[in-house]
């Protein structure tokens, strides 16, 4: 396992870009075709500043960061977060950038507990994101 087995260790920050094209791809792959993720008109009609990313896409990218720290997929035993702030994705080819950081919180004989920090434009977008990884 590549995650350092010591509590309080900060994990290397990872960055992910989300563009409108990514939202279309995620809508197709996940089956979540809610128009707030592709139509500015509908997004604004429900009080959003514009099209926002699927919360589950943001969570998927956070999970990817965890997999990278863990050295590959398949070790996550628990994963959870609240969706506290929308990730607005402008239609400008640049999109939005997510920054995922993490800290090892606890190491037991069986698992490693990690708290995450997921931000976009300087603001936390996930509430209490955390993951539990199997050791070994």
């Amino acid at each position: 396992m590549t995650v350092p087995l010591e509590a309080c260790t900060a994990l290397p920050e990872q960055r992910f870009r989300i563009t409108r094209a990514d939202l279309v791809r995620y809508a197709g792959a996940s089956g979540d075709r809610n128009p707030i993720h592709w139509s500015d008109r509908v997004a604004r009609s429900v009080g959003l500043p514009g099209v926002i990313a699927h919360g589950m896409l943001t969570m998927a990218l956070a999970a990817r960061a965890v997999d990278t720290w863990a050295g590959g997929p398949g070790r996550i035993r628990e994963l959870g977060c609240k969706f506290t702030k929308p990730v607005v994705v402008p239609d400008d080819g640049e999109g939005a950038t997510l920054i995922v950081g993490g800290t090892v919180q606890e190491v037991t004989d069986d698992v490693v507990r990690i708290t995450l920090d997921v931000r976009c434009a300087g603001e936390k977008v996930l509430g209490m994101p955390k993951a539990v990884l199997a050791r070994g």
Partner: protein
Amino acid sequence: MAVDPSLAGRSFPPTPPYQVTRERIAEFAAATGSTYDGGPAPATFPIVVAFGAMTALMEDPSVGIELHHVVHGEQRFGYTRPVVAGDELTATLTVDTLRQLGGADIIGTRSEIVDAAGQPVCTAYATLVHKGEQP
């Protein structure tokens, strides 16, 4: 329209079996910026199956949810094992909790995802926030 108060504790029928193919996993992995190497599916892949169960809840006319007023508030997964290609998965959703907060219904759901043998794979907990009509 408020959500039916007797919803708490109610279980819904299992979703139709979902065939997990290599193509499905590869498509999901690509959509989240990673590549599929033939091993475990990405950790959030089971949302595809849970989403079917959540949609059935939200579209059930007896429940009283208006789809356009629903926000995904929280998501948690507990895994017994990773999802792999060849799995046939079904999700059975139960409404664990229902409470009102500031004019919104906070619906706590749990979807038990099992394989073709009925063995547990993953439990997906979703909190749905149903905002009532503004006066």
